[in-house]
């Protein structure tokens, strides 16, 4: 009995020892990773990489932490908007929150990868050349909106809400799109008027014509204006020309020719509106 107890005691001691060893190994591994991270951060700080990279990437927020906070708030606002239109259940809200959080995590993983690649480039000239290539796709994701188009959030939304809720949400989303379309068309007209003032009658006619023809680009962001301008450039001459006098028409022709070369670029970057987008 005594021998058996001693054996159990030894086995327990061994088990405890092994557990402690595993915990220590895990702990030192984590510590090692943290130290490595700290060391890397310290090196980056000395070189000015971390903050510099963040400032370039997050032009609006200046720092990754601020960008993350803003995106988390945007997610809340996005869910609140859908809730206003659809009266979501708690379970639906939770699922949307989960999907949106997934988009945020996925985005910051991409940022982290880009940062690592950036830090790995030791040659200053090479770094200068490649920085934009690393940062630009991430900035474009931010510009297009993290929860739009091909995001987890948007894809899940269709599955999470009922058909009736989807219809109600689409009505709200269409209203917002229509607002944006009108704003962009009026901006194109205002920018044209910087070179060539129009009478009120001409302005109203041009806006009406463009409203009947121009579709929103597939993605918002810095190229949206070009996409609208190009559609203006592609509006058939027989519809556009009667709105202007001969001198104004010369300016219109110059403007139209400036934007015609952009079509390929806008199509390649999935910005050019597809036929079905506005239908």
């Amino acid at each position, binding site marked *: 009995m005594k021998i058996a107890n001693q054996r159990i005691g030894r086995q327990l001691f061994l088990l405890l020892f092994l557990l402690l060893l595993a915990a220590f190994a895990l702990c030192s591994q984590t510590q090692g990773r943290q130290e490595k991270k700290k060391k890397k951060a310290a090196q980056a700080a000395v070189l000015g990489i971390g903050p510099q990279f963040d400032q370039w990437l997050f032009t609006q927020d200046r720092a990754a932490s601020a960008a993350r906070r803003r995106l988390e708030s945007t997610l809340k606002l996005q869910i609140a908007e859908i809730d206003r239109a659809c009266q979501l259940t708690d379970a639906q809200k939770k699922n949307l929150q989960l999907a949106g959080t997934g988009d945020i995590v996925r985005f910051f993983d991409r940022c982290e990868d880009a940062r690592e690649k950036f830090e790995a480039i030791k040659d200053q000239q090479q770094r200068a050349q490649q920085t934009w290539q690393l940062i630009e796709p991430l900035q474009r994701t931010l510009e297009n909106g993290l929860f739009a188009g091909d995001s987890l959030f948007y894809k899940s939304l269709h599955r999470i809400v009922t058909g009736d809720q989807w219809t109600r949400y689409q009505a709200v989303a269409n209203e917002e799109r229509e607002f944006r379309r009108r704003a962009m068309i009026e901006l194109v007209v205002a920018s044209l008027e910087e070179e060539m003032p129009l009478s009120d*009658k001409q302005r109203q006619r041009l806006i009406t014509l463009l409203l009947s023809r121009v579709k929103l680009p597939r993605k918002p962001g810095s190229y949206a204006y070009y996409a609208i301008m190009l559609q203006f450039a592609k509006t058939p001459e027989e519809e556009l020309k009667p709105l202007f006098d001969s001198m104004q028409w010369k300016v219109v022709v110059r403007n139209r020719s400036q934007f015609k070369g952009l079509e390929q670029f806008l199509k390649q970057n999935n910005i050019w509106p597809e036929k079905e987008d506005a239908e």
Partner: protein
Amino acid sequence: MHFMRLVCQPTKEQFERIAAEAETTHKATMRAPAMRFMATGVSVLRKPITDALLKSVRKVLSPEQAERYHKELELRNQALKRSVALNLVAKVDKFLILSPQQRRKLSKILQDHWQESWSELQMLMYGSQYFPQMPDAEISRILTDVQKEVWRGLTKAIVHFGFDLNRLNTDLGDEVWDEGRPPSPADADPATAKKKGRAGSGERK
């Protein structure tokens, strides 16, 4: 000058008097905005130029013609304000996910608290990430708590794009009296053009 001709339809004599006056006042008119641009970076040239031209129009043309010109300038100004306000609202909307009601309210706030520097359209055309300085107190009043939090965190900067040389290079050029083809609203109105034919109005006295 072309816009003035289009709207007021002056006679050749009236046009030449206004053109002569514009020639002398042009330099003086441009000096103030140029100095302002040097000091602040704001390059809003339209108003000083149209103000100076309006003075000449009032001096030379009939009260009806001057009123027509003044009214068109007002309408043009309103259209610009509306366009800028709509686009600023769309820009804010992207970050704050506004409701339709909030969009309407914000548009009104911006038009009521208009700032001349917002007329630099490049900020809206090329998708700048920054917001101009906007009436924070009024805007905050229409926002929810979460929206306020996001709004406070957004960078609002005084960003000026300066002169848009591209646009200055492609302007209408100097307006000259063209006997053969003066500007006419009929040109811009196919229905009227059909009735009146292409007869120019430059020779009207």
